[in-house]
């Protein structure tokens, strides 16, 4: 968007009072306020509003699925079409990038020490908020800050420098420590800080549990995306790629495989399009790249000698019974087996927690960390948020977890 386009779009905003968009944004960016500022020409002010509420403002400007958040509830949609809120958000942060940054104020004096484990969206969101309260915050991560957006979200959707803008901005508020936490260091951290926030995300790909899965050329999706992002040049991908999965991550993998030069990319999914938990924009992007999607298809066996040569699949149909997620359960259709040729199979059927040092902390039935309404885990003084408590989510939700947890941590420490 250029200045004029942004102004025209901002002028369409009704400036609703107590607006639904603000409530729908997990970080509660004051949407009407920042759009009103774009309208008056105070674009730097608009960027400040966005950055005040959302620690990863630049990142979210690129990758936030607005269709499920702010924009989905825009009042204006009842008259014609919703305001392009994320585009305006992005416009404001981009403008600030060109015009120079506002200098944040100095937060109050230090009032205590808090540790944050994991510098992904959730950890960063929490650390930012804790710093505003005046805490001395130590953020531990085994790698560079940014989490999944840094390591896995493909660079054609999120340019590295966008994320850098956020992490650079945030780095002034707390101390970043490059360290891989294990059982011992975890114990030490918990003991030496007033409170600890665990935001380690997931990180471990689920496996299919079918024969042939350990053949060469079968790759877990995170491994694939991380490598494709870190070393795109040395990355080799076969001509025929099959991806198993039905979420956004599988679409990212498919689009990435295409970009890396795969001739055919087939995504197989065991239910129908209706049940796919994906954002429309991602699905469109993948299709535009020429990705073929086969619905109602289940993998039964990876074939090949030492390297994968194909994947044996079976058709499914949807039964009347629903699973926990409310979607119909797919049933295999006997005698419908067929083999798809493949030089590579990417497994993208979800992730689980990687850490093996969370021993004493209670889990949910799905295996995530269990927390109460205040994001507190079963260990007193240990809080958690982001994907590690809720499974695969979104950047903005993870930031919001961190932000709300920070408030709970502040209350916890103040009550001590």
């Amino acid at each position: 968007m250029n200045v004029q386009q942004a102004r025209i779009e901002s002028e369409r905003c009704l400036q609703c009072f107590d607006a639904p968009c603000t409530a729908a944004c997990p970080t509660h960016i004051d949407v009407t306020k920042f759009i009103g500022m774009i309208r008056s020409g105070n674009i730097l002010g608009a960027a400040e509003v966005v950055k005040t509420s959302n620690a990863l403002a630049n990142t979210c400007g690129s990758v936030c699925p607005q269709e499920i958040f702010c924009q989905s509830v825009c009042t204006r949609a009842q008259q014609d079409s919703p305001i392009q809120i994320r585009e305006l958000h992005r416009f404001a942060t981009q403008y600030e990038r060109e015009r120079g940054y506002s200098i944040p104020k100095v937060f109050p004096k230090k009032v205590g020490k808090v540790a944050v484990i994991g510098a992904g969206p959730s950890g960063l969101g929490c650390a930012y908020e804790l710093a505003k309260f005046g805490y001395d915050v130590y953020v531990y991560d085994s790698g560079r800050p940014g989490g999944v957006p840094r390591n896995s979200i493909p660079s054609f959707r999120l340019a590295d420098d966008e994320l850098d803008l956020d992490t650079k901005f945030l780095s002034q508020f707390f101390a970043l420590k490059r360290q891989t936490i294990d059982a011992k260091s975890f114990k030490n951290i918990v003991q030496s800080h007033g409170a600890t926030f665990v935001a380690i995300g997931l990180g471990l790909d689920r496996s299919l549990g079918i024969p042939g899965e350990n053949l060469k050329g079968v790759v877990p999706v995170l491994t694939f995306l991380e490598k494709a992002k870190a070393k795109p040049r040395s990355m080799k991908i076969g001509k025929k790629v099959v991806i198993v999965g039905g979420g956004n991550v599988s679409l990212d993998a498919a689009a990435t495989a295409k970009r890396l030069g795969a001739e055919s990319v087939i995504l197989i999914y065991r239910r129908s399009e209706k049940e796919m938990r994906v954002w429309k924009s991602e699905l469109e992007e993948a299709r535009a790249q020429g990705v073929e999607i086969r619905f109602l298809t289940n993998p039964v066996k990876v074939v090949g000698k030492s390297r994968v040569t194909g994947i044996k699949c079976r058709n499914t149909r949807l039964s009347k019974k629903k699973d926990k997620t409310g979607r119909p359960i797919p049933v295999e259709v006997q005698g419908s087996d067929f083999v798809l040729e493949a030089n590579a199979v990417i497994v993208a059927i979800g992730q689980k927690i990687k850490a093996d040092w969370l021993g004493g902390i209670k889990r949910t039935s799905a295996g995530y960390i269990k927390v109460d309404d205040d994001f507190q885990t079963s260990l007193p003084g240990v809080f958690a948020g982001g994907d590690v408590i809720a499974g695969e989510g979104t950047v903005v939700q993870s930031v919001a977890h961190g932000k709300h947890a920070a408030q709970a941590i502040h209350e916890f420490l103040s009550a001590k």
Partner: protein
Amino acid sequence: MEFRSFKEIEVYPTRDLSYDFLGIHFENPFILAAAPSTDNVDMVRRAFDMGWAGAILKTTSVEGTRVDLCYPMMSTFDHEGKKLFGMGNIDLISEHHIDKVEYNVRMLKKEFPEKMVAASIMAGRKEDWQSLVQRLEEAGADLIECSFSCPQGNIGEDPGKMLAQSVSATELTARWVKEATKKIPVSIKITPHVTDIVEVAKAVKRSGCDALTASNSIQALMGIDIRTFSPYPSLGGRSTYSGMTGPAIKPITLRTIAEIARNVDIPILGTGGASTWGDSVEFMSVGAGVVQFCTVVMHYGFRVIDDLKSGMSHYLQEMKFSSPVEIIGRALPNIVTHDDLPRRTIRSHIDEELCIACDLCVVACRDGGHMAIDQRPSRIPSVDHERCVGCGLCQHVCPVDGCISMQVVP
């Protein structure tokens, strides 16, 4: 997962926008005009908490002054999809008489000593004007604004006219008011509906009053229902003239303020059509010391103060001004008479890269200019510099920022 309510912690420092004007300290240049938003003390409290620097409480008068309101009183001048481009009202002064307003001033000054609390008054007889001022000054008002632009506030020589439409009545009445004050400044709120605003301003100056509030609503007939022939706002089919306020009247106010500032040395409180921080800069650049807001608040609420303050702060930073005071009067030297304007040869230029081929400039110039823009098969129009006189119409009908520019021919 439902989140509990969240109170955002400010990340950016609030810049100091304070300065002194009329011997009063203003936290920022933005105050509320005498209107419904200042008629209720709870509303003013809320506005103060949100950051408004001051308020002029809605005009009051002596006990016994009849305030005979009619409803509905509001109407709107919508323009091409924009609501309240102009807003009309047939409101009168406050229904609260002096006792209540005096009490409100006291309460507000006690709770918000750092805010500018002013009262607006209107009366007929000398003793009424004077008792109003004295009581309000006693109650702690920082400033008195006298509404000389209420149609009912006339002293009798010209029934139906506003006080500020008579130079002699303005001077006389203003003098009464000033005489009755001890220390606090008095501002006279005038109307732009006069033949010569400068004469009125000079009369105020001669009276010894401290400032002018320029100006007020513009008398207007807000519209007619073309099927029932009922004017707006319709009260059972009938209506009367309204006072029009809001964005539509901004250029009129700018001219009024500028004309006073160019000719009379007197502080000015600007009101009439300001909605944004940018409008405020404009008001101040032609001579206003502070800016009053009414319609934008009635439309969007007190919350607009956030952008007013933030926008002004960024503007000052960009311009390297240390205080809003530096804006006051900056544009005045650039306002000259028609005779003093430079005579140059100007031609229109269309940036073909930016042009979106709507051809609006073609039709505007063809039927309203000098038939100097030619259509082309590509739809990208071309200006004939022989026929173009450089009037600038095409530039203003062009929907694309920066596409058409007026260039000087050396």
